[in-house]
Every structure is written in structure tokens, then in C-alpha cells.
């Protein structure tokens, strides 16, 4: 089983028709990336399933506006994504993005999404001005845990003092993960901290404190400095570092398709690991490419344990 733990579908983002600074070389700026296309890319690449994450334009407004875009520059969202999920129910695990409880009845929205087939939720804390330890957010997170749903957190685009800092969010996640029982949690982009830097310790320590926390590894550290230079040695070195500091059994392969369409063909997004991640044994590779994600998303169905080999690899 091969699972891509971060993908999206959309009509377009960062519209190049109305934004001259948005290059057409990233095709998502001007044409649709729908479920049909993603599934065919998955077929070519030998990918069985994907975490398909929906967000509405308002959910990513914080980031878009920081980059000079407006809400109208993104077209896609919950309804659009749900169409794709329903078209390919065997290929996608659907996650919807959480809105702010200051503006919405988020617990009701969670119930609605779960009824519609969501297996979990994505949260951009900075985008919704979240303090995760606030009562309002604790209520939402406890509700998610009670519903045995999963939570993906992305610490993208932190802008202190407009938002909390990375250290503050790591502390909040630690507090939440400690106090909310059965919260199934994964950090996207490996926590949005470059594993090759000193700050990478923050995520490693967080994971060490919470054995059930996983890391999805598209653009780890929210950094892509390999350009188009396959097999993306810097990406590989970051994942290799995470194997040491966090443990391979916690790492889940991801591409963030279609956001990196200008840097790699989807097949290259997995072949760089299959063919070049020599630091992963075949067993660890299976875990990284899908087994760990299967365990993460299936943890409420069956409580499988990490393999002994992967625990040895961790080396911490």
C-alpha cells in the first residue's frame, strides 16, 4: 500500500491570468487539477491512496495575502474536493480544513464533514489566529478526538508577532497532545521546521514526547531548495535526518500535489525515494511510502505497532 499523505485538487491557485507575478510554469496557476488527473498520476506512479485535503479560499487567505494574492485567486474548496472524493472513494482519504471557532460553529462543521465521509481535518493555526490551548480550540480538538478523527497541523507562514512563533506553537501542540486523550495527530511538512537546522530539535523533542505523533514529509521544513534537480538531495537529506531524530516509523511520504508541479513530475516525487533513498531498507521504505500512513489513518480500526526494524533505525 502506497499512500501520499498530502494532496489537493483545485480549479486554480495564484491565478496567473490576473497576477503577472504568478508564472504559468506552475500549471496550477491557470488550469484545473482535478481528481481524474490526480488519480491518473497516482496510477502512473503506483500510488494506491492519497490524503486529499480540501480548503476553501478563505482558509488560506492569510498565506495568499502575504504573497500578494486575494481570495479570488484560488478556486476550489470543500464542495469541489468532495466531488473528487465521491468519484474515487477507494483512492482518497478526505480531510477538510478547520475554520475559526470565533466565526463558525466548528464542532457542527466537524460533524457535518464526518457524516460526509471525512476521516480527519487540517488546521493552519496561524491562518485562523489560533491559540490551540484556548478553550474554544480545546473544545474543537477534544471533539475531533472524541469522534476518532485525525488531525493534520501545518505550521506554515508563521509571522510573529501577528501569529504565534514556532516555539509557541510547538509548546501548544505539546500541551494539547498531552491533555486531549486519543488525539490522532500528524504535522505536515515535518512540522515546518528545517530538520537540518538547530530548530529541528523542537520537532524531534515534540515527537519524542508523543509516540503517536506522525510527520508528513512533503517539502519538509516548508523548504524546497532542490529546484528541479532530481533526486532532490536536500529533500532526501532532510528525510534521512528525520529518520535519525524522529524515527522512520513516524514518517509518511507526501508530495503536496499539485503545488510542486513546476519542480517535479508526480512520478519523480516518489521515485526519488524508491530509487535513491538508500538510507531506507526495503521494510522501512514500505513503511515510509504507505505503511506508516496506513497505521496513522487506521489507528482507530487496528492498533498496529511499528516494526522492530524501524524502531532500531530510529537510533535515539
Amino acid at each position: 500500500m502506497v499512500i501520499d499523505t498530502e494532496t489537493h485538487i483545485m480549479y486554480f491557485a495564484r491565478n496567473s491570468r490576473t497576477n503577472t507575478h504568478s508564472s504559468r510554469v506552475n500549471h496550477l496557476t491557470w488550469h484545473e487539477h482535478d481528481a481524474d488527473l490526480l488519480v491518473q498520476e497516482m496510477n502512473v506512479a503506483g500510488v494506491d491512496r492519497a490524503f486529499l485535503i480540501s480548503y476553501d479560499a478563505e482558509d488560506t487567505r492569510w498565506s495568499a495575502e502575504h504573497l500578494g494574492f486575494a481570495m479570488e485567486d484560488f478556486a476550489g474548496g470543500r464542495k469541489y474536493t468532495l466531488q473528487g472524493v465521491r468519484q474515487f472513494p477507494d483512492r482518497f482519504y478526505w480531510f477538510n480544513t478547520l475554520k475559526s471557532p470565533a466565526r463558525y460553529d466548528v464542532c457542527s462543521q466537524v460533524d457535518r464533514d464526518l457524516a460526509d465521509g471525512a476521516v480527519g481535518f487540517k488546521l493552519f493555526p496561524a491562518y485562523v489566529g489560533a491559540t490551540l490551548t484556548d478553550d474554544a480550540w480545546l473544545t474543537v480538538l477534544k471533539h475531533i478526538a472524541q469522534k476518532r478523527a485525525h488531525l493534520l497541523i501545518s505550521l506554515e507562514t508563521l509571522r510573529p508577532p501577528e501569529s504565534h512563533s514556532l516555539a509557541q506553537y510547538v509548546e501548544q501542540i505539546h500541551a494539547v497532545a498531552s491533555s486531549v486523550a486519543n488525539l490522532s495527530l500528524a504535522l505536515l511538512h515535518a512540522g515546518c521546521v528545517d530538520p537540518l537546522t538547530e530548530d529541528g530539535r523542537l520537532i524531534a523533542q515534540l515527537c519524542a514526547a508523543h509516540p503517536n505523533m506522525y510527520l508528513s514529509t512533503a517539502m519538509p521544513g516548508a523548504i524546497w531548495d532542490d529546484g528541479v534537480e532530481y533526486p532532490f538531495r536536500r529533500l532526501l537529506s532532510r528525510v534521512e535526518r528525520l529518520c535519525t531524530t524522529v524515527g522512520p516509523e513516524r514518517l509518511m511520504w507526501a508530495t503536496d500535489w499539485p503545488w510542486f508541479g513546476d519542480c517535479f513530475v508526480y512520478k519523480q516525487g516518489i521515485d526519488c525515494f524508491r530509487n535513491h533513498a538508500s538510507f531506507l531498507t526495503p521494510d522501512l521504505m514500505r513503511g515510509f511510502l504507505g505503511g506508516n500512513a496506513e497505521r496513522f489513518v487506521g489507528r482507530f480500526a487496528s492498533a498496529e505497532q511499528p516494526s522492530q526494524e524501524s524502531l532500531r533505525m530510529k537510533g535515539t
Partner: protein
Amino acid sequence: MVIDTESHVIYRLFPQNTNPGRPMTFRASWHEFNGDLFAAEMDRAGVDHAFLISYDAEDILWYLTTIQHATMEDCIAGRKYTLQAVKKHPSKFFWFATLKDPRRPDSDALVKADIDDGALGFKIFPAYFPLALTDAALMRVFRTCIETNRRIILSFEDPAPPTTPSFSQYFEQLNRVLTEFPGLKVQVNHAGCVDPLSEAAAGILDVVKRHDNVILSTAYLGMVWDDRWEYPYERYLARLKRLRDEVGIEKLAWATDWPWLEEFFSYPQSVDCIRNHASFFSSEEKDQFLGLNAWRFVEDLVPQYRQARIFQNA
């Protein structure tokens, strides 16, 4: 100076609407590859110019019907569409037209129209007519190109003997053409359409070694792409090395055939595999291969090209 010596702009190929079995990963089946997109790709890849080759559906009908079991409606592109891109990006694209069947009664007029409009030369698929390269009708076109100082781009794709000459027959005919017209400058695409690592390549390599007025364009070498997605495309690089060793760097010109192979690589990867990984080339050889040889091929035409009719009302 970096020049891509084989590229195209295309509205649709094998459209999904009427070819639902085509994979969507072949994106030309459902979205446009136009001049704006290509110019943006060139900009980010550091490519200065491209030989932009137009063909109408009828020009590749042989390929559409015999190779792809498709029809004329499955190629939506052509001269007018390409010229839109050329006019919009005059400093980037060098336009080459594809020759229509030279036995047509209006062939001379069509050739003249393309020349008058500014085409730097003609691409010829001899097997698609099908014709021998030494057929009188084609020889007449070669003479016209010498008289008007235009270039010829040959692509020996998809021969089907005995309906068409074989590869070896085409190479022998090419030798005769180059001998008879030493002033004719010829580019052979896909390095002759035979795998440079195969014994069959000896035919084209021998011809290229014998003549100074021919270069090999190197997209999709030998019509083989067995590296798939595995950048930096070691097999492709091995084929290039063989070509350099056999015919010399001065006879080789970089090309991508964009967007035909874009499902396997991004445009920058197609040039970076040379820049960063063709270690068998010296720095000077890379410069020659990536652009200088192509520039020499068209350099004397460029000043008048800038004044061509297609740009007058652009």
C-alpha cells in the same frame, strides 16, 4: 546563448473529449501548450531562443493514422496558431514551417508564402509524403532553399518500407543531397531517428561525418526514451556521448521536442541534465552544444528575420 532546436506549440493532441482512453498525464490531450507557457518555461530554464516548428494536422497525417490510429482532427495546432506565438515573442522564437507534399500543384506558392512571411526554413518528414529524399519534387525545394538562403530540418520519423525508403536508404539519399547541395544547411532531428547506441546508427553517423553542412538535433534521440522519469537521464546522456565521440561536438545541437515529452520531465530538467550532468562535455563543449552550434546554423538569417512580414503588423 542557449537555443532549443526543436519545439512546438499545440492546442490539443488526441483531445480527451474524443479520445477518453488517452491518459491525462499526457497533458496535451486536455490543455494548451501555447507560446506564453513556452516562453515562461524558457525564461526559467535560461533558454534564449527556440526553433519553433509549425505543422498542420495534414502535415503529420501519416503519423496520426499509421502510428497513432488517429485522425486529422486529433491534432489541433498549425501554422496560424504557431505564428501567433512567434509574433507575440519575436525575440524568442525562430519559426520553421513544415513542408507540405511538394508534389502538390500549389507547392511552390506555399513555399514562397512561408519564405516571404519569414520562415527560416522548412521541416520535412519525407516518409510522411512518402517520398525519397532525392525525389525531384524535394530536390526542387532544396534548390529553392539555397536560392533564398533557407534551412532544412529533416526528420526521418516512422518509415515503413517498402511503402517508404528504409532508414539506410534515407541516409544514403541524404548523403547524395548533401553532396549535390554543399550550400544547403541541414539539421537532422532526433539524430536521424535511429538509436545512436545501435549499429544502425552507423549510417547516419557516416553521413554527418562526411559533410560540413549538416548538424544533428538531439531531442528524443533515436526516438527512444527509455530513461522515463529518471533524471538526469543516463541513457540519453550515453547516447549523446556516443554522438559526440562519433561526429564531434560541432555537429550537435540541443533540443527538447517540447511539449511532446513533458510527461517525463520538466522543461528545466531537460537543459539541466546537460548543464549539471553531462560530465563528458567540457564547458566549451556545453556552450557549443546548448546554443552556439544552433546559432551558427541560423545566425546570418536573423537580421532579415527580424524584419519579416509576420512581424510587420505584430
